[in-house]
């Protein structure tokens, strides 16, 4: 587990430890999602997990784009910025560069993050900007009432694709990995404890943390993830990842993922003499495992949930501020008078 989670947890400010509870993070705003929307659960887990980080409320900022997900900041009793469609990561990058002391979260949707905002996501992740990006993936445009999103499955009939989409969907995890994101995870709105645990890991990561939360939009894409998230089937159809542990899943914990050559396959423990030792062991630092996990999905495979990847790399704001500290150390703190008088000057009496 050497390289995981960077330079340890993001450091909350020194001093008295702060004792806050979930309620402290509930704002006075009325929540305005559709009844039954998966966003409620994500909000609840976000509020529940906040006290774990030891940050005072005022040092936490939630920045969102536009979409149903984008409303979340209104409901958090922290600082919040509901920006414009797709651009939340850019505000976060500027804020974090200016204010490394803040804990910054970005809340986004599948359209916000991967359609209009795809490029900012890519660049924020590759820079390892120290923000936690939580993407609500309902595989649809909720707020604009039901058009296809970049994660909508091929052929899906939506308002904007009455004959079915002709666009091959993107895998959010694959995009994050291509950007060399240092932390990549997936959870599900209804897996409340797992979701909280995943947000907890993301919150303690130093650098860009990307979390895909599979979310149900009961109005425009009801049951998008039902086939593998329904209570009765979820254990058989999802694969809960744990660093250093073999990839086992199933109600009976009798199934697993094995590499056949370098191709993954589902096997049953005990069949054909297969034992735990044959299974692939999850390693959050291994890019090839991350890639493989980004590509397996129901129905061919169980859907991986948990932390796919977690590695250490210096963060953008840290490097930026190190350069500044270095320049000051080397040249002294900038002197305005000297700066203005630099270069060739002459005096007129």
């Amino acid at each position, binding site marked *: 587990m050497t390289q995981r989670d960077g330079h340890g947890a993001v450091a909350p400010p020194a001093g008295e430890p702060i004792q806050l509870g979930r309620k402290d993070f509930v*704002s006075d*705003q009325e929540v305005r999602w559709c009844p039954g929307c998966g966003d409620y659960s994500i909000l609840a887990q976000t509020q529940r997990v906040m006290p774990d980080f030891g940050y*005072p*409320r*005022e*040092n*936490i900022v939630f*920045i969102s784009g*536009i979409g149903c997900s984008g409303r979340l*900041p*209104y409901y958090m*009793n*922290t*600082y*919040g*910025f*509901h*920006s*414009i469609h797709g*651009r939340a*990561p*850019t*505000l*976060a*990058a*500027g*804020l*974090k*560069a*200016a*204010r490394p002391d*803040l804990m910054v979260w970005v809340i986004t949707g599948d359209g916000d993050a991967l359609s209009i905002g795809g*490029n*900012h996501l*890519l*660049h924020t992740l590759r820079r390892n900007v120290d923000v936690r990006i939580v993407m609500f993936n309902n595989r649809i445009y909720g707020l604009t009432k039901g058009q296809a999103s970049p994660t909508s499955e091929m052929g899906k009939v939506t308002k904007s694709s009455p004959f079915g989409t002709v666009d091959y969907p993107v895998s959010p995890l694959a995009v994050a990995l291509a950007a060399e994101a240092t932390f990549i995870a997936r959870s599900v709105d209804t897996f409340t404890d797992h979701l909280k645990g995943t947000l907890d890991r993301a919150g303690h990561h130093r650098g860009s943390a990307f979390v895909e939360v599979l979310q149900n939009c009961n109005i425009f894409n009801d049951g998008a993830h039902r086939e593998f998230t329904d209570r009765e089937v979820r254990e058989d159809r999802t694969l809960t990842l744990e660093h250093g542990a073999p990839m086992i899943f199933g109600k009976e914990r009798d199934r697993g993922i094995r590499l056949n050559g370098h191709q993954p396959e589902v096997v049953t423990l005990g069949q054909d003499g297969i034992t735990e030792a044959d299974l692939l062991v999850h390693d959050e630092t291994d890019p090839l495992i991350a890639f493989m996990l980004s590509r397996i999905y129901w129905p061919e495979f169980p859907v991986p949930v948990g932390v796919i990847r977690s590695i250490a790399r210096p963060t953008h704001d840290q490097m*930026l501020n190190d*350069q*500044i500290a*270095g*320049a*000051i150390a*080397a*040249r*002294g*703190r*900038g002197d*305005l*008078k000297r*700066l*203005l*008088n*630099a*270069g*060739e*000057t*002459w*005096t*007129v*009496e």
Partner: protein
Amino acid sequence: MSTGTKTERAVQTRELERVTIRFAGDSGDGMQLTGTQFTRTAAAFGNDISTFPDFPAEIRAPAGSLPGVSGFQLSFSSSDIHTPGDAPDVLVAMNPAALKANLGELPPGGALIVNTDAFTTQNLAKVGYKSNPLTDGSLSQWTVFNVPISTLNSGALEGLGLTNKQVDLTKNFFALGLMFWLYERDMGPTLAWIEAKFAKRAEIAEGNRRALRAGYNFGETTEIFHERYIVPPAHLPPGTYRNITGNEATALGFVAAAQLAGRDLFYGSYPITPASDILHQLAGYKNFGVKTFQAEDEIAAVGAAIGAAYGGAIGLTASSGPGIALKSEAMGLAVMVELPVVIVDVQRAGPSTGMPTKTEQGDLLQVLFGRNGESPLVVLAPATPGECFDYAIEAVRIATTYMTPVVYLSDAFLANGAEPWRIPALDGLPDLTVPNRTEPDGFFPYARDPKTLARPWAVPGTPGLEHRVGGLEKADIGGNVSYDPENHHRMTELRQAKVDRVADGIPPLEVHGPAKGDLLVLGWGSTYGAIRSAVERLQADGESVAHAHLRYLNPLPANTGDVLRSFRRVLVPELNLGQLQLLIRGRYLVDAIGYHRVRGKPFRISELEAEARRQLAELGVPAGSATR
């Protein structure tokens, strides 16, 4: 204006008030450097100067081709000047392409110094010369000095062990040396520059030194020049001076503003000509706490600046027209969240990609109106390279005092042009500190200062002020999302009123010349020098003509209407098709006449003078007999 003196070689020295030189050659010939060296020398000598670098969009266009010609014009003077000169007195042409591209602007009788070595059949053919202009008599109306620069130069560098290519790269310093001789200038500053620049490459340094001296000595020994010229120092106001381009002054101004505000400067930007140099420069000021962020695009750049301003820093972004277009949605967000973000637009010739290295004033209406909905913000425009410093500070003052985005309009001519700049004393600079809100009692995110209508700057990290902002309409005072119809109307008016309030804290529009009269020439931005010069010529002739120059485009100074109505006619020269003109007409119902040229170049003084005379004639003012 001219007094004859003698040098050793019995060469006359004439004193001139002002000289304009244009160096022209291939983009590989180092003309920009040559021009800059002459400029430094003249400036340090005490002349007033003004420069106009003009280079191709191509990095290295094919050698010897017309699109590859790079030019640098500088004017130096013993009196106060405002422009790099309409036309050169001397053209230095390093090859046939440079000759062909520039000859049209050299007035009859002007001096032409030509590198004859470059006039090969092949080079002539490249630019479509059927015969050699140096020999076919077609240059008879100019005073031509034929100098085999390449040959003379390589002779001087012989034995140094440089490659042919290396030798060739120094020939611009030969030309420079010759010009130093011709204008009796000290080679010292340039020799020192060579020393520093090539500290680690002794033979290259030596090559350049020799080239420079060879050029100088050639002037001294050749018989072809019968006169030298001296332009005495100008009577500039006392102070310490340096040479500065608009982009340099802009960068320095924002660094200074951040220091004066006691805040970090955050600069988010995406490279684009002619704004990139601001990024290059600011990126070097790390020890001033300047944080530069080369974003993935212009949208990210302004987004990051908004994020930084939200965090309490001075949020700055810059681009040119196409990039500003991309920023427009986010600029609207800055208007709605009322954060102090400064957006610099270094305008270039458009539309679309247009002519990226050329100047224009085509973005005024874009920055005023190029956003959805009623989205008012403040717009400033410095008029000279030196003013770029002052208005950077002013932009930050307004942004933080009123909590509003501010657009700062520069252009390619300002950005790259240079002038002597009197370095301001620090204690003359304004205090820009504004407090963050810290008191939770009675805090409302959209409560307003009664005087400025600014909302509080309540930055994350402040206990008890946790609140949410965003692009949806805000409830007055409380700041929660509101769809209330009357609230929207009120907030729309408040945002407008706040920008209008800025007019209370800015100086009135100044009139240079009579306060009332026949003709007012109204300008903005980099056309200042040409307008001022043209107007002064007319004033010298006794015409009742004045010049007013707007630095504040939104809001306009409170007295603007009065000024306009004090003249029988208002002429608005712009490097666009009449953008300020439309605004002025719409706001004040004054029948302002436009003069529009979009050639990617600054105005010539003479054309403005002629146009002003035409207007006077139309008013029935006989030339030279204006009401005095």
